[in-house]
């Protein structure tokens, strides 16, 4: 018997339509602090990454301020993401059905979810976003500290900083790509954004996309 897909705070409210609580207020606030930090980091980071986007420093009060602010937002993101990590990691653990789901990416993209295994609270794509972001943010904060010259400049050699700055920028690019996937999926799969704003989804949404989660909720499995 598989583990329960129900998180603390998840509950189902029968009616027409059925309403399902998906994220608690704390989880949503935690998510949006992370989200805003990530967007600001991407903007300020890209400004310093390529001269073509240097004008983005204007959003942060100029080059000096961008350079000062960027790492601090990074600290906020790291701490905030740690919160998300410990909230969400249990139900993001990889299962055998997730590999099946991934192998049928064609059906996923064609909106043919009835051909896929029933999904718990998170599908394999969401789990990939979760784990890749966890890894990238760890890499970014680590390499970021190495190139945070104002406070840590004396602790690392120039060669270490060169390696760190290359890793930092390459990882940031991949993280931005993952972020695009994350945002696009939320738009593409209608009814999803409400989960992170009001914390609720409809029963139909849960039935269609996360049926095993809904079933566990209804049967009171936990």
């Amino acid at each position, binding site marked *: 018997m598989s583990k329960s897909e129900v998180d603390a705070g998840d509950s189902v409210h*029968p009616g027409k339509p*059925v309403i399902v609580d998906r994220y608690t207020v704390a989880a949503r606030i935690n998510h949006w602090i992370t989200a805003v930090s990530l967007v600001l980091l991407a903007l300020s980071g890209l400004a310093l990454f390529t001269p073509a986007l240097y004008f983005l420093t204007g959003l942060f009060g100029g080059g000096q301020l961008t*350079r000062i602010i960027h790492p601090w937002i990074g600290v906020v993101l790291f701490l905030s993401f740690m919160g998300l990590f410990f909230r969400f990691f249990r139900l993001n653990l990889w299962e055998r059905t997730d590999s099946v789901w991934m192998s049928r990416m064609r059906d996923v993209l064609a909106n043919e979810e009835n051909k896929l295994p029933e999904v718990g609270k998170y599908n394999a794509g969401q789990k990939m976003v979760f784990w890749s972001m966890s890894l990238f943010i760890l890499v970014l904060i680590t390499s970021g500290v190495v190139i945070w010259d104002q406070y840590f400049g004396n602790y690392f050699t120039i060669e270490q900083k060169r390696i760190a700055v290359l890793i930092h920028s390459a990882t940031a690019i991949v993280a931005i790509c993952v972020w695009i996937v994350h945002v696009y999926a939320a738009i593409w799969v*209608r009814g999803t954004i409400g989960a992170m704003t009001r914390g609720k989804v409809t029963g139909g*949404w849960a*039935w269609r996309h996360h049926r095993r989660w*809904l079933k566990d909720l209804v049967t009171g499995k936990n």
Partner: protein
Amino acid sequence: MFTPVPNPTTNPVAAKFGQQDLIRRSASSVTAPAKRQTEVAKLIDVSKCIGCKACQVACLEWNNLTEEVGVNVGVYDNPHDLTANTWTLMRYTEYENAESGNLEWLIRKDGCMHCEDPGCLKACPAPGAIVQYSNGIVDFDHDKCIGCGYCIKGCPFNIPRISQVDQKAYKCSLCSDRLAVGQGPACAKACPTQAIVFGTKDEMKQWADHRIKDLKSRGFKNAGLYDPPGVGGTHVMYVLQHADKPQIYAGLPNNPSISPLVEVWKGVTKYVGLAAIGAFAAFGFLHHAVAGANRVTAEDEKNAERLTEGQR
């Protein structure tokens, strides 16, 4: 004796070079001037240096810099490293020459080499914060510097230093302000033994040849000019008694070039990275256009209601 740059007139003169003579500008492009100015160079003859530090003092003096009082740890180097205020530093090495059995005191005046292919400039993300004039000077514009320290990563010689006061990067300017009005660099002016001479790059190479011949006649068979091709040559060159092993001169790089890490970071990563971001965004638009939104159907809602009915 090399004829030094004469004292200039005391009358005001127009600057000999300026923004119109830029051949490179960090994080931006410039239209190179049709005619390049004569390349200048500073030649530092290590064999003539007596280690008096007059150049260091002249540099502080001219650039209105003050170095903190340091501590003596038993070496002559003072301060112990280049700093945001010390743009040039005498580095002392006691070298035991195995061949001659002599102890040689190698004193190298360290500072910006003014590379023809400047790594600092290539790494700099702030438009115009680092510029290269057609006469070869690589100069920092502190108003535009954002203090990120990328120039430090780009430099193959470990020269720029970030000030702990204003968090901006500093290094030797080759006295661009003095040169602009026809004077030589302050350090060359102050040098009592002509270990530092200044002129056009061609003149300096000729003078170096003359010096190298002299050194060879004195038994320094590996004497030579340090003008490393890995960075396209430099506008500060050394005459070394042992040009075959520059590293004995307080770690002068053997064959310096911009780190491949920096080249990858500033080159392929930038283009591939932006292309990848664009490709992911484009995939999103394309997918939404072709496959359309994934909507919950009335059937789905009914199924959910049926499932939860027992709960009422």
